[in-house]
């Protein structure tokens, strides 16, 4: 049953890749502005859970509701539109477009939504400032460090002011110092914009930035708050 007031909720999710079962009855819910860490060992199914919640992957069965709308009832174009306008993403390796400058990378989601280039780049620049990497605006991803690139990726994820930010091991490729700074900036910015954050990680110190933790193991999820 959907917890009252939840923004995004999944129930009894099943997903298999061939013979490998990635999700086996997992559930999840998040409230607006909440930061939830999804934890678990490698191969436990946490990234698949994130992909299902974000509408990137369709589960084999189960329901996902976002803001009262059933995700599995939407077609690919509707889910893409949802991701463009309501969701933001940060991946482990940033996945910045190497040929675009940092400011163009950050402006990209806005441009995909139809915002004129100059306006989009102005907004992008202000986000780069917030994440303390505005001096990199004209540089390409190949010219910046991993930590800097990840901050640019966070700026890109937040530039559309998403209601949900999905972060898949956002500090996985960074040293602890850089990782912590990225998490500070990410959570600060998310709270400032009231974005809910689904934070997939296997590191306890990263999960410490969250309000609540969910552990995924063998495709099943367990809410640690309710477990206590």
């Amino acid at each position, binding site marked *: 049953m959907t917890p009252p007031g939840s923004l995004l909720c999944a129930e009894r999710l099943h997903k298999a890749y061939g013979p490998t079962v990635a999700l086996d009855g997992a559930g999840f819910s998040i409230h607006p502005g909440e930061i939830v860490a999804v934890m678990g060992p490698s191969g436990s199914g946490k990234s698949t859970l994130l992909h299902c919640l974000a509408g990137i992957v369709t589960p084999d069965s189960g329901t996902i509701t976002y803001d009262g709308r059933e995700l599995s009832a939407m077609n690919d174009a509707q889910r893409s539109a949802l991701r463009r306008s309501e969701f933001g993403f940060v991946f482990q390796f940033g996945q910045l477009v190497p*040929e675009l400058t940092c400011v*163009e990378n950050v402006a990209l989601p806005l441009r995909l939504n139809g915002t004129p280039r100059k306006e989009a780049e102005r907004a992008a620049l202000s986000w780069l400032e917030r994440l303390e990497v505005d001096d990199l605006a004209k540089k390409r991803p*190949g010219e910046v460090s991993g930590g800097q690139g990840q901050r640019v990726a966070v700026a890109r994820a937040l530039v559309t002011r998403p209601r949900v930010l999905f972060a898949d091991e956002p500090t996985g490729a960074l040293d602890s110092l850089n990782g912590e700074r990225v998490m500070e900036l990410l959570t600060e910015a998310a709270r400032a914009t009231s974005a809910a954050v689904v934070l997939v990680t296997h590191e306890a110190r990263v999960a410490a930035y969250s309000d609540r933790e969910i552990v995924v193991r063998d495709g099943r999820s367990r809410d640690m708050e309710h477990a206590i």
Partner: protein
Amino acid sequence: MNARQWARDLAQGVRFAFTGGREGWVRAVLTAVGVGLGVALLLLTTAIPNALAVRHDREMARSDDLVLDTRIPAAADTVVVAHVDTEFGDTTVRGRALEPEGPRAPLPPGVDRFPAVGEMVVSPALKEVLESDSGKLLRERLPDRIVGTIGESGLIGSAELAFYRGGEDLAPYIDDARATRIDEFGFSGSPAEPLDPVLLLLVLVVFVVLLMPVAVFIAAAVRFGGERRDRRLAALRLVGADGRMTRRIAAGEALAGAVLGLVFGAVFFLIGREVAGGVEVFHVSVFPSYLNPSPLLALLVAVAVPAAAVLVTLLALRGVVIEPLGVVRTARPARRRLWWRLLLPLAGLLMLYPMIGKGRGNGDFNQYLVVGGVVLLLVGVTALLPWVVEAVVARLGAGAVSWQLAVRRLQLSSGTAARMVNGIAVAVAGAIALQMLFAGVDDDYTRNTEHDLTRAQMQVDVVRTVPLESAAEKLRRTEGVRAVYAYSEGMAGDRPKEPESSTWVTAGDCAALREVATLPSCRDGDVFAVPGVEYDTETPKLAVPGRTLYLDPSYEGGPERATVAWRVPHGLKQARARTWLTGAERGGFLITPGALPAEAGQALFQEVYVALDPSARDAREHVRNAAAALHPMTNTTTWAATEKSGRFTSIRTGLFAGAVCVLALIGASLLVSQLEQLRERRKLLSSLVAFGTRRRTLSLSVLWQTAVPIALGLLLASAVGLTLGTVLLKMTDTPVRVDWTSVLSMTGIGAAVVLVVTLLSLPPLLRLMRPDGLRTE
């Protein structure tokens, strides 16, 4: 650093090429397939001169010329050969009737015994046609029993239609130049006449134009999988390999692909050779055994391809710094310099310059200068294109997201894009130049037949033994025939031998004669003089009533003629010439049948001109069959508006066939390269889709990414092609005229190749955009 170290590193690279698991194998095989296709095409192209030479030799070996310098008497070792060629559709069927005159009569090549009367031996291709449903009409014309097939040594191509049939009483036709008496087949006189210098120029340029893109393609093929390889090399740096070692190891990997490519190429070549044996392009076919590349050229290919692979890899790695922790490409590579790139085409022009204005009269073009000049000009395209692409894309602004993604990608690495289109640009530049040259000299090699195709479309040459009236009547009643005009034609001279003055005599009924001249009135028994035709000064001299003229007079050195005396009648009328069916005006005497001496039939030859019903299907075949039924030695000619030199046509045909192969090959390489790039970007594409990028946006970005360099490449190719075309025309002293149709069609074909490649790469692109790309476990 010594040779041993080089060899060790190269060997290490070769090992890496095959020990990288499935991915390593796939990459090595991909490279080998690319190189193999190029090698096969190189071998096939280098085998073409040999194939043409063998065709020529076979043609010479079976030669049986009708016009011989000396006549030989019938003997135990002679055979009379009559030419009984025919046509089926647009294809010529080579036909000979053989009548051995003694036990030692020579057999033509490929035939092991003389067919008896009513029998024939045929080429395998003709046998197939005759046995097929579509060959029913031809079978009617060639009803003889098939008693064997002509061997390969008697044919000039696998698809050649040819037959030898048994003949009798052929000797009387020797005088008519319909038959010949020989004691051996083959032409052992002078060697093949040298190729006209302009045609030689064409052949040289065609070869360069076809081979250059193949070389460019091979250079691109050895770089397949480059990015992934660079990452692997970084791992080697981590365990202690220095920069130079990694480059040599990379070269070793390319060498492995190239050597495997040579093996693939040899296999593809052998397959291609067999396939070529079953293919006929524009009426030219060859036997697989004809396609043997010269050993020297094959050796050159075997050495040059691996060497080029090593060289290209070392050059390509110049701009890449492989560090232990990854590959570093300076985000903004050093700006390309223009000066040395301009030197190449300029040097090419300088090499061609001394030959400008030489024309055909001056004979020889220096082959080395021509090849060198054209190669440098075309290599200039490959050198200039990266600079042009870089210079132009640097100035392109950001537009829509798809455009921005494409332009930024090009700005970051324009070299890859330029390399992708280099082959097409070279092929198009060369083809434009050649098309210009072809169009320029076309008139020299095309003869306007001037036949009036609105009035008659076929000509039937009826032998003297068949009465003209009955031949005309049979042809008139043939299916698909609208009208026939029958004439007896010949010459009339003032003396029976060695006449000083002579003119044309044309005999026919009034309706037929009205096609030759405007007659005041006409009835059987009338004779008309037609003076006033250009170059005919003799008719007024001979058109004197009462004067005796001699039909079919004899000339010294020629055969003895059955000359017939004819007196110009007193009632001679005057007529005014009009353009005849043959497109020319005909002067001389026009004679109605009633005024022709009875024995004139021996002195005149007989022609029936046939007008066909354009809506009748197979009308030409019916006429050919009716003509063959009149007499087996009846010649039938289908008229065309123009006639082209056979050699000119075959060179032009060769260019088209070669260009199609080259463009298909380059298209395949473009596709492989495109897929390779997409695979490299799989994760990025998936993440772009994850945050909502429309698939259309990404597809359009791929299209722009190919279309921009292609547009620039075609523009540059057009400029270089037009320059080269102008130079070639000036070399042959031909007025320079740009054949815009060919420029547009060649650039259009180039653009179409890109479009097809982009369309073919869309399904994999859509697959790669699936979220699976985000999975890391």
